[in-house]
């Protein structure tokens, strides 16, 4: 998706976020407000006790771009006590709603799994195995694959991350995976050749 015309590339970027750089800069005033800081006795960010240096409180990854689905600076949407006003009971039941769709190449239906329900990759793969029954897991040195014993087709578990890229499961630490995974796809091995395995790191071993 590279653009050579410089004019277009900046509009592409701002088309994605809907905002240009100035607007996404962190300030103490609420977005779009034309009032100065002095007018408001206690701005929202002050109420949070936020320090503008620490941008990583949200997701643990400090290179998170200030782009959110709603096209707003997301730093201010941090954990304010009691906000949003949802009862604890409901919060606990819904947790962080980390349900993601699971697709299997060659089958027409999708399933959903709650990533928060698993402690790590091994449990997730076991659950996928159960969900699609006939598959059995086969551990390769650096990856995990699932096999359909009926026809011997091998599937590679992959996921789409927040940037829209398709990645092999197992490369990043589990919690990072849970935070960035948008959906899962069991891809036929034959199609997975383009997803070259990453350089093995310590984190792909079972936890």
């Amino acid at each position, binding site marked *: 998706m590279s653009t050579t015309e410089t004019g277009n590339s900046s509009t592409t970027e701002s088309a994605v976020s809907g905002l240009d750089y100035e607007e996404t800069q962190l300030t103490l005033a609420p977005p779009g407000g034309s009032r100065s800081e002095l007018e408001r*006795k206690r701005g929202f960010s002050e109420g949070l006790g936020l320090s503008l240096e620490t941008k990583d409180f949200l997701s643990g990854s400090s290179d998170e771009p200030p782009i959110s689905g709603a096209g707003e600076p997301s730093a201010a949407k941090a954990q304010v006590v009691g906000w949003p006003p949802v009862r604890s009971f409901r919060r606990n039941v819904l947790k962080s709603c980390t349900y993601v769709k699971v697709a299997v190449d060659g089958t027409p239906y999708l399933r959903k799994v*709650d990533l928060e329900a698993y402690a790590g990759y091994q449990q997730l793969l076991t659950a996928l195995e159960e969900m699609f029954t006939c598959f059995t897991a086969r551990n390769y040195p650096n990856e995990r694959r699932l096999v359909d014993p009926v026809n011997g087709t091998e599937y590679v578990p992959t996921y789409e991350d927040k940037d829209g890229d398709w990645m092999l499961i197992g490369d990043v630490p589990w919690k990072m995976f849970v935070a960035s995974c948008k959906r899962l796809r069991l891809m036929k091995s034959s199609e997975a050749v383009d997803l070259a395995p990453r350089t093995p790191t310590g984190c792909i071993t079972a936890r």
Partner: protein
Amino acid sequence: MTYFPEEVVEHIFDFVGSHRDRNTVSTVCKAWYQVERLSRRTVFVGNCYAIGPERVMARFPGINSLSVKGKPHFADFNLVPYDWGGFALPWIVAAARLCPGLEELRLKRMVVTDDGLELLARSFPNFKSLVLISCEGFSTDGLAAIATYCRGLRELDLQENEVEDHGCQWLSFFPDSCTSLVSLNFGCLKGEVNGGALERLVARCPNLRSLKLSPAVSVESLNKILARASHLVDLGTGSFAVDHRTDVYHTLMNSFPKFKSLRNLSGFWDASPCCLRAVYPVCTSLTVLNLSYAPAIQGDDLIKIICLCFKLQKLWVLDSIGDKGLAVVASTCKELQELRVFPCDIYGAGTTSVTEEGLLAVSSGCPKLNSLLYFCYQMTNAALITVAKNCPHFTRFRLCILDPGKPDPVTNQPLDEGFGAIVRSCKNIRRLSLSGRLTDQVFLYIGMYAERLEMLSIAFAGDSDKGMIYVLNGCKNLRKLEIRDCPFGDIALLKNVAKYETMRSLWMSSCDVTLGGCKALAAKMPRLNVEIINENEETYEFEENLSDRHKLEKIYVYRTVAGPRNDAPDFVWTL
């Protein structure tokens, strides 16, 4: 009227039902006060610290139904510390001594203990109904006591309580002779449930009309229960996910068609889309549907079920329904009165959720809509103005824009005009929650137009003390005002102190009120309890030395005839 014998006056008062009306007739003259107090059967105490239990029961010795509320509403959002108060025991103890005929007890946001429940169970031979909402402090042992000793119990309704799990046997404590249950709701329990005991209990209670199960109740158990309870009107399913290739699933699919009376459906904990199909046969008669605990059900599946529910009056869903799903609600549910849309993804950015479009659609499609709770990522003034025009009958309007202080995204303006239109158009509005970017102007509108407003919730809004003053000087029916993170200080607090005696309570947190301001308020108004909730350990050790200019994190002000309470923890100071 003074020449009528008391029995006649009493008979006339039988037709005076509402608490407010009865309170009013009791103030007419001494004779009426006497007749009224002796014939009163139901008492509602909106703030357990406004009056002592003995005084209530001495005045109304004949009550058989008591309803008491404890903690302030913001306790729901963890703004009130855990052991602030709201203890139920004094009320149970007093009732055990003074009102042994008690039949119904309803408690909300109170601390209830197992000892209290056991005392309750043993003290009232005619006890019929226990409703606990957002309470805590008890365990399944307390429930076992209720089951054991309340002969003739008709209703046990536990809504969203924090209940400690001490095992699943409490259900077995209902004796075989217990056949009187009409309503059983234990949806909030987290622990295992004894399926066999539950099934037997349901089987022997022919009058059971309302049954709400907890997530631990399996589909298999549900199937057995449904086979025995075909007269149910109100069902909360337990767990609602099972593999579609199993017999259990097939039985589930065939369980619902026979329910002729089923009108309310809820539960659906972790429901899967294929299991949801089981309820399609009853959708056309449903009046209440709560799918707000089923995050796995996405927009398209929600649409499939909603387009069958054309008699729906109350719908609770997650925002995964999307604007598209709300458009289907608008075109299908012409009888809709209440809509609640909860956020599925509380901390995230939210890609599929609802916007002003969804609300607009529902407002134009559902002419009977009068109660709304709507969590969304954005709202525009234009949409609110149109909603106000479409739906002048709102009595409850709660809008929560998830990004605090967010303006109209189209015009970048505050939402003053939008909310102003709502209060101007909806003359009967009783409850209002505001959000988004708001200036003092919106409060001017509220003070001017919201004559029937009783409860107002404000967060991250306003520019100056004027905002709060507009509300206190207007809104003549205001009973509860709760404010967080607004720039309102002592000037606003002290402008209209008499107002607080006409209200149940005022909550202010993360505002600009100071210790000096609160001291002044307490001095002027001896019949108010001005409570300061100070969780900052550093300062409460030195309370004597705190300057009057010290800003207070949380205050709770309420009228009372009981004086300062004697059960306040260390971190609560009553001035």
